[in-house]
């Protein structure tokens, strides 16, 4: 219950997705007293490795690289995968299993993270001794996984909207500088702003600079349209 309370409090406090997934791995490992844990996520139809702890790092990354492992199966089937002794099933996921055994991880359980439409990831838990993964341990892991799974859809929607507004804000500040520079060039050369943009583009091309850099020089550090005219004439000559 302490693990559930800690994880759910992290959600309510508005933690980042990364922090919530790391909490999921750490708190599950503590609650189930296992040695390694990791979270895999589905991105663009593939399994990618998320946060991992302790010895689980290499097997988790191999699972992502080969798209084969208990987490991949849990995502695909939506069912819990329990392996009490990996040495008994070496052929099931050869790369993953040999890496896990290299790190003395003998037993593994994967619990899917699900939303109504699809599997969005899995929680993988590893033990260093043979373990049968009794139902109460499965239920404990599922409760933790459900909390994280609930958070992912709306938290990632919020994250995307933060990304969009950050991009728009950057675009706006670039745009402001370019438009101001157009106005300055137009005023100095007594031409229209449509003509001013051509002057700036030509100057940028001649000097192997971007339009943005030219605009910033005009507005910010006093590169003057008069100088552009001289430079343009020189370039033309």
């Amino acid at each position, binding site marked *: *219950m302490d693990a559930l309370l800690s994880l759910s409090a992290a959600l309510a406090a508005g933690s980042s997705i990364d922090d919530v997934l790391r909490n999921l791995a750490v708190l599950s490992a503590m609650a189930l007293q296992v040695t390694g844990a990791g979270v895999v996520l589905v991105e663009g139809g593939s399994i990618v490795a998320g946060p991992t702890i302790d010895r689980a790092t290499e097997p988790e990354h191999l699972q992502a690289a080969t798209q084969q492992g208990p987490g991949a199966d849990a995502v695909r089937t939506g069912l819990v995968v329990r392996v009490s002794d990996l040495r008994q099933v070496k052929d099931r996921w050869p790369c993953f299993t040999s890496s896990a055994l290299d790190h003395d991880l003998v037993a593994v359980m994967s619990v899917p993270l699900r939303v109504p439409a699809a599997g969005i990831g899995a929680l993988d838990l590893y033990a260093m001794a043979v373990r049968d993964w009794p139902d109460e341990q499965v239920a404990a892991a599922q409760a933790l996984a459900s909390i994280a799974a609930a958070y992912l*859809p709306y938290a990632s929607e919020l994250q995307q909207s933060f990304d969009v507004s950050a991009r*728009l804000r950057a675009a706006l500040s670039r745009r402001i500088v370019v438009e101001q520079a157009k106005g300055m060039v*137009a005023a100095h050369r007594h031409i229209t702003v449509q003509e001013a943009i051509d002057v700036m583009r030509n100057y940028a091309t001649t000097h192997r600079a971007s339009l943005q850099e030219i605009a910033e020089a005009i*507005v910010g550090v006093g590169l003057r349209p008069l100088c552009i005219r001289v430079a343009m004439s020189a370039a033309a000559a």
Partner: protein
Amino acid sequence: MNQGGKGLAESLSELAIMLARGPSIADALRSLAEQIAALVGVDSASASLQEAGRWRLYAGTDDRSRELERSQKSSMHGPSVEAFRAGTVVALPDIEQAPPEWEVFRAAASATRTVSVASVPLLSARAQIGAVSLYSASRRYWSRADLDAARVLGDLVTSYVVTDVKLATQQGLIRQLREALISRVVIEQAKGVLAAERGVPVSEAFELLRGYARNRGVTVRAVAAAVVDAGFRP
């Protein structure tokens, strides 16, 4: 914790599935009340969002819980209000023992044959945003497991509510930025024209545009367009 015949894992999973569909805040609160009532096995439950001194929204599993929320909304006293205000759990096996200022709530409890109540605050990063309340028609000594279960399910819905508010803010901001990308083009050009002609900083050029627009009762954008397209000078 399992009197309702359901496990916490199952309740969490059902609530998670519900939230993934993007429900209204009212529906999310109703689901919270229903899940917690079924999980801890009580007769009624409600969830409310509050702000300092007033009720924003509440939802209940039945008439009793809605009546008990209403009584607190009108009097601003009772377990949900107290859990919200103090940010701590209020657990009362016998509502008769409630403080005197809960008179209205106590009368409503008596009228709806409600004996015991527990209210758990909904806590976000910095503040309480509401409470979830459990009501029992028979005397109930609330267990740690009951209250913890309410906290965990409540946290899930709290994160949903808080995210929803942030999302609405972000979407408003995105709309404004998109509009600004179009509407500011001509204004920035006019600022550039005036700044270059008069040798003043662009901030001062903007003041020229704004001052003129304000005095004539026209928009800055209209003045800017006249500067850029018609050679007008304020």
